C-alpha cells in the first residue's frame, strides 16, 4: 500500500507537500483553503513584532519561467496575526509559523510568541533577499545563523526550522550552522536575489528595485542546494523552489528532502497543485515499487554509509 505520510520532526504530515511562506497566507481563511485543497502542512506568512506595510508596488514581475517579487514582508504584527492562525488551524493540518526579526533577541521573542499562537513548529525566515535589516541580512553568515537558531530554540519547545538563503557561496555551511544552533530542520531555498529593468521606463520595475526570483527557473539551484545540504547535515531537509508537479517534488526528495514546499506553483496551477503533486508522486511510487516516501529520500546520492 503506497503511503504518502511523512513524519517531520514529530509533525505528522498526511503528505509531503506544504504551502510555502508568503503565498496565500495573509488571511487564515486562505490558508484554510490551501489545507482543504490538500496541502500536508501550511507555513504562514512571515510575521514580525510590529505591523509592516511592505514595499511599494510594483511588488511582482511575471517572467517566462518564474516570478520576481519584492513584497517586503508585509504583515499585521504577530498579535493581530494570531487570529489568522487560529482560523487556519481549523484545517486540521500542521501549521508552521514563519517569523522574521532584526536580531537574535527579537527572533527569540517572536519564537516564543509564535509558539503561544498554537503553531506546531516555527520557521525562521533567515533568507528574504529584499528586506533591509531582516531575512538574508541576518542569515548570510554561519555565525549569525547559528546564534539566531540557538536563541530561537531556547525560547520555544516546538520544532524550529531554519529557512536558508541560496544567495551565498556555501549554503551547506549555513545548514551546518543551523544544525549546530539546534535547528530541528532546514528549509532550502528561499528566492534568488534578482532585478528586472524596463528599458522603456529606464528603471527597475519593482518598487524595491531588487527582488527574489522563484518558480521553475530556480529549481536546479534548489535541488543542488538540497543535495549539498543532505550530505552536510543529519537534520531533515525541506525542499522548496519551482515545484509544481510530481517529478519536481521527486527531484527534491531524491536529493534528500523529507518534505517539499510549494509557493509559485500556486500561481501556475492554483491550489489544485497540492493534489496534483500527490497523485503524481503516488503514481511514480506505484510504478517503481516504493511504498513509503522515506524510501526515496536521498536516493540520488551515491551509496551513503
Amino acid at each position, binding site marked *: 500500500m503506497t503511503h504518502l505520510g511523512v513524519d517531520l520532526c514529530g509533525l505528522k504530515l498526511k503528505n509531503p507537500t506544504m504551502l510555502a511562506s508568503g503565498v496565500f497566507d495573509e488571511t487564515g481563511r486562505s490558508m484554510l483553503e490551501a489545507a482543504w485543497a490538500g496541502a500536508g502542512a501550511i507555513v504562514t506568512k512571515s510575521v514580525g513584532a510590529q505591523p509592516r506595510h511592505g514595499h511599494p508596488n510594483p511588488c511582482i514581475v511575471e517572467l517566462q519561467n518564474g516570478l520576481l517579487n519584492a513584497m517586503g514582508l*508585509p504583515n499585521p504584527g504577530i498579535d493581530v496575526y494570531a487570529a489568522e492562525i487560529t482560523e487556519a488551524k481549523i484545517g486540521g493540518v500542521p501549521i508552521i509559523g514563519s517569523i522574521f526579526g532584526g536580531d537574535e533577541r527579537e527572533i527569540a521573542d517572536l519564537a516564543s510568541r509564535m509558539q503561544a499562537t498554537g503553531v506546531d513548529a516555527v520557521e525562521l525566515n533567515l533568507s528574504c533577499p529584499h528586506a533591509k535589516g531582516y531575512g538574508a541580512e541576518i542569515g548570510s553568515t554561519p555565525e549569525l545563523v547559528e546564534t539566531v537558531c540557538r536563541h530561537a530554540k531556547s525560547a520555544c519547545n516546538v520544532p524550529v526550522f531554519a529557512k536558508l538563503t541560496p544567495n551565498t557561496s556555501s549554503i551547506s555551511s549555513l545548514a551546518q550552522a543551523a544544525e549546530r544552533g539546534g535547528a530541528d530542520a532546514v528549509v532550502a531555498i528561499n528566492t534568488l536575489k534578482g532585478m528586472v529593468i524596463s528599458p522603456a*521606463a529606464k528603471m527597475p520595475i519593482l518598487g524595491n528595485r531588487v527582488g527574489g526570483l522563484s518558480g521553475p527557473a530556480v529549481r536546479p539551484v534548489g535541488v543542488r542546494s538540497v543535495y549539498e545540504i543532505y550530505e552536510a547535515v543529519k537534520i531533515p531537509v525541506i525542499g522548496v523552489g519551482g515545484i509544481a508537479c510530481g517529478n519536481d517534488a521527486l527531484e527534491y526528495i531524491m536529493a534528500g528532502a523529507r518534505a517539499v514546499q510549494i509557493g509559485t506553483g500556486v500561481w501556475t496551477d492554483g491550489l489544485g497543485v497540492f493534489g496534483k503533486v500527490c497523485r503524481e508522486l503516488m503514481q511514480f511510487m506505484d510504478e517503481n515499487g516504493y511504498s513509503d516516501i522515506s524510501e526515496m529520500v536521498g536516493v540520488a546520492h551515491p551509496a551513503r554509509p
Partner: protein
Amino acid sequence: MFTIAEHREETPSIRTIRFRETLAATPAQFVMVWVPGVDEFPMSASFAGHGFGITYQILGEGTKALASKMAGDKIGIRGPYGNGFVLRGTRLLIVGGGAGMAALGPFVEEAVAKGAAVDVVIGARTADEILFEKRSIMAGGRIHISTDDGTKGQRGLATELAASLLSKERYDCIYACGPERMIVGLLKMATESGIPIQASLERLMKCGIGICDSCALDGKHVCKDGPVFSEADLRAMQDLGKTKLDRSGRKVPI
C-alpha cells in the same frame, strides 16, 4: 509599456486614457497600471480591443501622477486579469456608482449589442461627476440618473433609484459596480426579489495574480476569483461592506 494615444477628462475628477496598443478584455476585467517610479494599481478596462483604455478617478499619489501623463508617454500595463461580467438574460438592470461606471460602460455596449434591454442607473455625487451617461445612451441603454445633491436626476442614492425600478420592472439579472455599501444594498434587494446579481468588487491589490493574498475576502481573491462575484459568493462574504485588508494585512473597517 503601452503608449498613451489620448488622455481626456470625463468629469472634473475622472479621466480616460486610450492607448495605441490593442488589448482584448471582458467588461470588469482589469489591468495593473504601472506609473514608473510612483506606484502600480488595478484599473478596470473601460475600453477593450483596438483603442484599449482605462477610466480612473484621481484619488491618491498614483492616480495624480497618472493624470499628468500625456499622449505619447508610456506606462506599464499587465493583464488583463480576473473574470468579467457574464451576460445572463435579456432584461438587465445595470447600476454604476461613481467611477464604478468605468467597468460597466463596456458592458452596457456588449449587452445591448447582444440584444438585451438594459436599464442603466448611474449614481454620482453631483451632476458634473456623472460618468458615461452619453456613452450609455449611444449604446442604446435606458438611462436613470441619481445624484447625492439633486443637481441632476433623482436626488439620493443609486440604490433608491434601483429599488423603484425593481418595484416596477422584472429583470433577469442585476449588474453592479461602485461603492461597497451600494453593492450590499443591491444584494439585499436582489435576494428579496429572487433576481441573480453580479457585482464587481474592489480591494487593495499587490500581485494581481492570485498569490499574495492582499485582496482576500473570506477566502476568495478579488484579483483571481473576481473581481465579479455572483449572489451565492456575495452572500457568503462576511467581510462584504464591513472590512478590508490594509497594506499590512490588517483588517480595517470600510
